[in-house]
């Protein structure tokens, strides 16, 4: 019974990043402030980049793919656009993970900048060139800027969660 409880608690904490990802994909909580649109940011990007960088086994690629499809359906984009952009970002994170010997939040933050730039370029070009959908690139650039700015703050919060997951696993 004790073992079951320990397993359950450990499992629950490990599932939190996945739950956050799907909650964001489903619930339109993309943190887009209608009145202060320049403050909107994409939390899904931060979740994906952080957790793939930390441990891809916590946030599986399959879940990222599925969250992308859900996001496309909700926003009304051609199905597959968000999946590709999320997976490209996950690819960046996985690549940096393999190269990094000593992880640090500041280093991750620096790498996050080109990753977001490439990811949003992929997103923009797919919509604009292949589907002829107009995208407000100024809003997209502002959104990227705020997302980059907020990465270390949210990263610190995720660090706490990551430590809890590690502690629960080792109990």
């Amino acid at each position, binding site marked *: 019974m004790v073992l079951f409880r320990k397993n359950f608690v450990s499992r629950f904490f490990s599932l939190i990043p996945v739950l956050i990802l799907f909650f964001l994909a489903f*619930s339109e909580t993309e943190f887009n402030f*209608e009145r202060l*649109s320049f403050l909107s940011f994409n939390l899904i990007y931060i979740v994906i980049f952080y957790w793939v960088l930390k441990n891809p086994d916590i946030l599986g690629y399959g879940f990222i793919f599925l969250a992308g499809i*859900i996001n496309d*359906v909700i926003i009304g984009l051609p199905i597959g656009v968000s*999946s590709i952009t999320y997976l490209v970002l996950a*690819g960046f994170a996985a*690549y940096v993970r393999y190269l990094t010997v000593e992880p640090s939040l500041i280093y991750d933050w620096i790498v996050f900048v080109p990753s977001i730039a490439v990811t949003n370029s992929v997103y923009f070009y797919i919509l604009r060139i292949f589907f002829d959908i107009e*995208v407000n690139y100024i809003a997209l650039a502002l959104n990227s800027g705020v997302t980059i700015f907020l990465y270390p703050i949210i990263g610190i919060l995720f660090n706490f969660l990551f430590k809890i997951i590690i502690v629960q696993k080792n109990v």
Partner: protein
Amino acid sequence: MVTSRDDFSIAIRSAFLKKGVKQKFSLLALIIASIILLSLEAVNSKSLNFVRSTIKDVVYRISFVASIPGDSITSAFTNIQNYFEVYEQYEIVKSKLQQLENQQNQVNYLKIENDKLKKIIDNSDIYNYESVTTKVLVDKKSPFLKSVILNKGFDSGFKKGMPVLDGPYFVGRLTEVNYLSSRALLINDLNSKIPVLIEPMGYQAIMSGTGDKLALLEFLPKNYQLEAGSVVYTSGTGGIFFPGIPIGRVELIEKKFHIKFFSDLSQLYLVNVITSKPIGNEQ
């Protein structure tokens, strides 16, 4: 950090081809799957459309349930804000009501006169349309795309292109129809282009969404003399929409003519979808 070329290719291969302990798919496999899905978007077959429609119906319903906590918090904040503004609004409404009562008398007179004139020219009533009221299921407030998901679909007779009204005001058109849900592209979306009529001058133009709260007036006639405050209606050109549905007022901002909508597109809750076709486009 390792920098040699071999290590670079090893890292790339590991990132895209290697599966983690608990991973079932590699990144590359999923990227290829996404590209295949994107390619299928261009294919328009009955069975694929049915699958897409079912997936969308299911996702919209789950999204609606998942949005409830967030929406409750937002509406609680809005309610508190509204309470603070009640008295101020009451005074404005009171004075407007008086003006409206005066106008109502004039309108009644004009309506009677209009009916008489219609009988004389033997014209059918162009505003006699059927509409279905539907609830906004999900309002994705994306800064890039402006659309809402409605909780009725082709089981209620909805078809692509049907106009969507908020009260008497035109707010968008259906761009995607599933069995139980549909998506309306709002008039402020960047991809929205609507033929409009500007009164009292009678100019025809195209209203283009800007992704913001205002729309832009394009393709105005040569040597136009437009005044701020003129009312913009749907023109009905092309037989897609009914003519004469009010949209908004003309405003001059930075030497460009914009349209300020009558309806607040961020507060849509119940909307009407016109299900009947305009006269001259019954097929």
